[in-house]
């Protein structure tokens, strides 16, 4: 991708936000899932607008996902966020049809995944999609190297070639030295690196990650997020990332979708959602986000009225990161884009106002 990372962007490893390319890669069209003995009846009730709890009480059917439509772009890291029971794990499984949708379509580059025969579906899963799981789901009887090679072996790649690629993938995630060990001998973070390598080695177009880092300690979780962003910077994939962790979503997402009760409440860039929450639910969700870690200098820069002094800060720098600079100087801080052009200034009042209000004020 021709997007140069902005100097001093949100996290050292963070790839630059994409701005120009908007090619839809994965499209979900009015997709729903009703669990129960008579999905057709449940669907009909769903169309009439019955609530999740009503449907459960009356007909014993559970709405997993309700009329979700999404466009996910090429190379985008798209986070689906929600509390447990919001339908996010069901949603990700509808994409590769681990769960069959009750209605609606999944389109991958215009190909209707929902209409594929079993044979074509198997081919699609081998060639174009892979998945990382919350509980790692490594095969206990294979060593790390053969676990990573699993997807390739299933697809009929010979053992030598598959292992060769697997070793390279292990190096990519930084754990080549444990290739001969059994998964159970590794820590959780290491196991998930294996899971990530296993998913990455098949060079999927779409990577599905279901709560992939949720089972890990906070410190390890951050490390894994960095590892993922590093992979993503060097070799962009389209990633659908399921999470219930707001800090994680804000840290890694290009865009976020907020889900509850099987429905999408809002889709947008993290800052957009915080700045303009669609409803009370979304607002409550983002209540605890610190604006200093969410907004960048570029988000709040205004036209400079006066001469420009001092070294500019990067447009991608987090407000938190420019605080010391603002504290040290009375003059407005100039803000420069990736090419070094001054795009505006931030004065101290503006910065404090934003942090106090929780979002940029006009």
């Amino acid at each position, binding site marked *: 991708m021709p997007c140069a990372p902005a100097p001093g962007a949100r996290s050292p490893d963070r790839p630059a936000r994409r701005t120009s390319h908007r090619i839809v890669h994965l499209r979900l069209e009015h997709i729903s899932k009703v669990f129960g003995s008579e999905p057709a009846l449940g669907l009909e009730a769903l169309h009439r607008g019955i609530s999740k709890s009503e449907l459960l009480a009356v007909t014993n059917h559970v709405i997993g996902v309700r009329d979700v439509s999404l466009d996910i772009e090429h190379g985008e890291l798209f986070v689906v966020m929600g509390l447990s029971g919001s339908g996010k794990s069901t949603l990700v499984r509808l994409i590769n049809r681990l769960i069959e949708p009750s209605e609606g379509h999944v389109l991958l580059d215009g190909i209707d995944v929902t209409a594929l025969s079993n044979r074509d579906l198997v081919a699609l899963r*081998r060639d174009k999609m892979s998945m990382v*799981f*919350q509980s790692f789901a490594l095969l206990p*009887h294979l060593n790390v190297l053969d676990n990573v090679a699993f*997807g390739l072996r299933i697809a009929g790649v010979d053992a030598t070639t598959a292992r060769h690629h697997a070793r390279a993938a292990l190096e990519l995630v930084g754990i080549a030295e444990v290739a001969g060990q059994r998964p159970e001998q590794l820590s959780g973070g290491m196991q998930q690196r294996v899971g990530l390598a296993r998913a990455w080695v098949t060079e999927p177009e779409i990577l599905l990650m279901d709560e992939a880092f949720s089972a890990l300690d906070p410190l390890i979780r951050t490390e894994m997020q960095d590892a993922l962003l590093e992979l993503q910077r060097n070799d962009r994939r389209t990633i659908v990332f399921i999470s219930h962790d707001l800090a994680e979503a804000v840290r890694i997402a290009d865009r976020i979708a907020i889900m509850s009760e099987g429905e999408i409440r809002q889709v947008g860039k993290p800052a957009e959602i915080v700045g303009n929450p669609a409803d009370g639910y979304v607002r409550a969700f983002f209540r605890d986000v610190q604006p200093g870690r969410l907004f960048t200098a570029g988000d709040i820069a205004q036209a400079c009225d006066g001469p420009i002094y001092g070294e500019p800060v990067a447009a991608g720098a987090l407000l938190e990161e420019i605080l010391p600079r603002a504290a040290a100087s009375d003059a407005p801080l100039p803000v420069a884009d990736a090419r070094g052009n001054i795009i505006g200034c931030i004065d101290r009042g503006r910065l404090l106002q934003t942090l106090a209000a929780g979002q940029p004020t006009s």
Partner: protein
Amino acid sequence: MSFDIPIDRWISTLVDWLVDHGQGFFDVIRSTLEVLTFGIEDLLLLPPDWLLACALGGLAWWRVNWRFALFTVAALLLIVSMDLWEETVATLALVLAATLVSLLLGIPLGIACAYSDRVERIIRPVLDLMQTMPAFVYLIPAAMFFGLGPVPGVVATIIFAMPPAVRLTNLGIRQVPAELVEAGLAFGCTWWQLLVKVQLPAARPSIMAGINQAIMLALSMVVIASMIGAGGLGDTVLRGIQRLDVGLGFEGGLGVVILAIILDRITQSFGR
């Protein structure tokens, strides 16, 4: 009150009918099991006794440890010194043949149970019946169908030893974590690849426990099967009982115990 459902007469009629009309079918089973059992027995008798004892000792060394290997060799030489080697090999052959058939039938049946709740609902009471019906009850019809000799003994042993193989295969596959199965599917497994590359390997400890149980049950059936002429150590025990020769009976029993310990430890080692 006289209210008698004549199950006894129905079963007798059925058995008589089968004896009269199913002879061809039973003959095929009989000759297959004969070839299998005697084949294994001849094979085991091919090397001299000390060589087979040492070979089993080597297996014990590889799978368990050197102490158990030492025990294996010493215990087998004890059997040789009691002059029970041929009986022991005959019993071992019977156990191995019966276990082999039990697994060939039981593991696929267990897989079918794991895949289908309906199959499981049908199979489960049949397994209960096989395990709890007193062995003598089907020993007699087995002798009627297959004549005397080791074959009806093998058949009775198969009936008795198969249930744990079915149950533990079923249980093992059902207990494979859901995410592991999803991982298999997400990477593009066909149903066959899912079975042989994910489910069966992940269920291996449970399946091996089933195999171990099948062997143990087969051994416990040996003495009973000797009553219809299955031969082997069971025959020694039986002769001891009939002649009130406590010492002879004990020697035969000791042989069974030694075989049981060796087979148990070695098959258990494959489950880890």
